[in-house]
């Protein structure tokens, strides 16, 4: 085999790319894993993982003015901070244009955003896969919950998801490791919400990819309750490419990892109607190379996988590979957020919390299911937590001096907050396009973003705030402060989805039921781009399941000689 020929090429090494690499190599394929950014080695390159707050020059307290200048996009939300700045793409090197405001927070390194993700891991439910078809919104998913359920189980067992079994249709249980504990206030709030809403609303520990039982076969030990996950975990206690999928893929001896490889296009042969490989640009040397393979997995994150398609086979389709449906780049979705409420909890002065739990609580969707009917479709879930204030709490009467200091050094009041994550519908007119008038430092055209939330989302956001107030009131929370932040921009959920959607018909979708590009069946897209609808739950677990399923199918087809 020539040194540029592989069985499979995986583009992108984040959550879904890591899974594609693992599955394909374990099934015996020689795989080239391409990553546009630098390498990040597990543990060794987590340079801030063990730093204490006083070891940071600015104590992680706020970004410097230079950081604000350098990161005009990242600064729009909480992500700009000195504790893990090295895990976010430099805005200056990754421009895009905004017809409408869009926050695009990217992780350009080996591991992608699997290093920084929120780790919340939920299954879509059966209604999520049916809603588009029933409501005539977008297109129908070509798969149902039962198609994906075994793959959810498969990826959960390997990734390690802690959570509690709740027996709910709206949020199917998975293969859980022992659940992390709710604190005393959360337990009481859970009880009150259950009573007050007659079992129709639920409140339990947030399911997350933090392990609570060691995985010695993966060299991962339990979560140590430091809550510094997004700096990289020296214990491998949360799921990331580095902690889990990459070592598994490497162990097969079948993987070649190539950092600094910006994929410019998928190479397409119009005679066979298949891809033959990819062309890459070396980000350091600016030289181009070609790699050949029988199958290609695009896992560059939703918008970048779409970008690659838009730049491919343009001699045949001016708008790129997969554009024949007219849907490539359209139907951009995110989860809209920053709507909820928080307040103070009286009492519990004799209780405190030991340890920093890396997950909160979760309230699954209850709107527009069973007999509930609102003036919008779909719904939202809440993430939140109860905690006791530390030194930042207010001290009554005292303002400076020894007594003030000693009072400040004590624990403050308990607080409880709920923050909604709402489903955004797939609107055809919400789109990304290639902006050929602007190029990045490698001379490549950039994306233009034209995405907004609409009436359905705005109505839902009112409920996200009002229901949070109502539930906190029911739980006895005082001094409730509503949150309905108009600052939300699409992208801030960091859950970009939908720009190469799956469907049943090549005329209205980009991918088929096995994530194959209709126009090139040996090209698979299994990241957020594939999503036909968004649900309201955090999507990464679904990308993992879709990827494992598609990889299994791809290898089967390859063996049958169909690819």
């Amino acid at each position, binding site marked *: 085999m020539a040194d540029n020929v592989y069985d499979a090429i995986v583009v992108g090494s984040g959550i879904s790319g890591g899974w594609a690499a693992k599955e394909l190599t374990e099934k015996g394929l020689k795989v080239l894993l391409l990553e546009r950014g630098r390498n990040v080695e597990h543990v060794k390159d987590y340079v801030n993982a063990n730093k204490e707050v006083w070891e940071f020059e600015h104590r992680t307290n706020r970004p410097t*003015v230079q950081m604000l200048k350098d990161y005009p996009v990242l600064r729009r939300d909480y992500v700009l901070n000195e504790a893990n700045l090295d895990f976010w793409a430099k805005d200056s090197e990754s421009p895009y244009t905004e017809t409408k405001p869009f926050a695009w927070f990217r992780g350009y390194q080996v591991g992608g955003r699997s290093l920084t993700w929120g780790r919340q891991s939920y299954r879509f439910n059966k209604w999520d896969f049916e809603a588009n078809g029933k409501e005539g919104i977008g297109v129908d998913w070509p798969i149902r919950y039962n198609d994906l359920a075994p793959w959810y189980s498969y990826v959960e067992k390997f990734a390690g998801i802690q959570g509690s079994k709740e027996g709910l249709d709206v949020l199917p249980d998975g293969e859980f490791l022992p659940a992390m*504990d709710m604190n005393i206030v959360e337990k009481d709030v859970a009880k009150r919400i259950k009573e007050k809403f007659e079992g129709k609303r639920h409140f339990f520990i947030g399911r997350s990819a933090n392990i609570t039982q060691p995985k010695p076969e993966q060299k991962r030990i339990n979560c140590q309750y430091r809550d510094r996950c997004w700096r990289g975990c020296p214990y491998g206690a949360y799921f990331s490419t580095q902690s889990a999928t990459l070592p598994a893929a490497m162990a097969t001896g079948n993987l070649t990892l190539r950092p600094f490889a910006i994929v410019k296009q998928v190479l397409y042969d119009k005679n066979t109607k298949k891809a033959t490989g990819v062309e890459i640009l070396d980000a350091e040397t600016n030289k181009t190379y070609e790699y050949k393979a029988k199958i290609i997995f695009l896992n560059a994150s939703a918008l970048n996988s779409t970008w690659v398609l838009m730049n491919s086979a343009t001699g045949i389709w001016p708008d790129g590979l997969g554009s024949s449906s007219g849907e490539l780049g359209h139907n951009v979705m995110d989860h809209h957020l920053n709507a909820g409420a928080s307040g103070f909890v009286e009492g519990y002065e004799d209780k*405190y*919390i030991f340890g920093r*739990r890396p997950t909160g609580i979760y309230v699954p969707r209850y709107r527009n299911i069973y007999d509930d009917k609102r003036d919008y479709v779909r719904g939202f879930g809440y993430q939140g937590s109860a905690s006791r204030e530390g030194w930042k709490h207010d001290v009554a009467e005292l303002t400076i001096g020894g007594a003030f200091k000693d009072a400040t050094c004590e*624990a403050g009041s308990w607080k409880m907050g709920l923050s909604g994550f709402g489903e955004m519908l797939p609107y055809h007119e919400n789109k990304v396009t290639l902006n050929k008038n602007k190029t990045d430092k490698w001379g490549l055209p950039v994306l233009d973003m034209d995405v907004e939330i609409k009436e359905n989302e705005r109505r839902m956001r009112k409920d996200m705030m009002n229901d949070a107030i109502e539930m906190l009131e029911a739980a006895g929370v005082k001094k409730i402060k509503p949150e309905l932040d108009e600052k939300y921009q699409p992208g801030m959920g960091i859950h970009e989805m939908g720009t190469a959607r799956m469907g049943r018909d090549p005329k209205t979708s980009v991918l088929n039921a096995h994530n194959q590009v209709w126009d090139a069946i040996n090209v698979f897209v299994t990241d957020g781009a594939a999503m036909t609808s968004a649900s309201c739950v955090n999507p990464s677990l679904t990308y993992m399941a879709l990827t494992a399923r598609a990889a299994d199918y791809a290898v089967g087809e390859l063996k049958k000689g169909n690819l």
Partner: protein
Amino acid sequence: MNRRELLRLVTMATGSVLIGSELLLSGCNTTDSNTAFASLTAEEIAFLDEVGETILPATASPGAKAAEVGKFINVMIRDCYETDDQQTFQKGIKELDLACKKMQGKTFLEATAQQREQFLIALDKEAKDYSKKKTLFDNEQGKLYTQAQEKGDLQFKKERMQPHYFTMMKQLVMIGFFTSKTGATQALRHVAVPGRYDGAMEYKKGDKAWSSK
């Protein structure tokens, strides 16, 4: 932890959100410039240690001076404050001294510990009253911004009212102290690797709070 919680703005006993944090929000008229400022002088840094020690003095645990808050404040002013705030802050050091002289008949460094405390209690009140006005002003600008957005005017920028210099000082002293090794490990409790979670541990009045992670 909810990943969105990081954004919650706390007032930290100053009646004002973190100085400059409003600049992170959309629609603010920011200069993104702070190049004019090199460093506070050694005297100013020593002066801030004394102000810090009055706000957070040594009690059973060390105070702000032992935690070298002056040095930290210098770094924060230099790197994290924009030009307007840098100027307000540096002028504030002189204003503080003048105000002390007016009230106590002595400069801050000449004043006794008791006089310093008395004076800063009065100054804290002045700063809080000022912050209330600033909050009203900021809310009004926020409304104008929302209205402009709704009308499709994306160019509208919020005006900014300068914060009170003592609000800045007090915030920086508190952050500097409680996130220092001294403050975190001696005034507060610090556990680098908890290893477990207990959501109902016993707590009695006077027990120390946890340090920042």
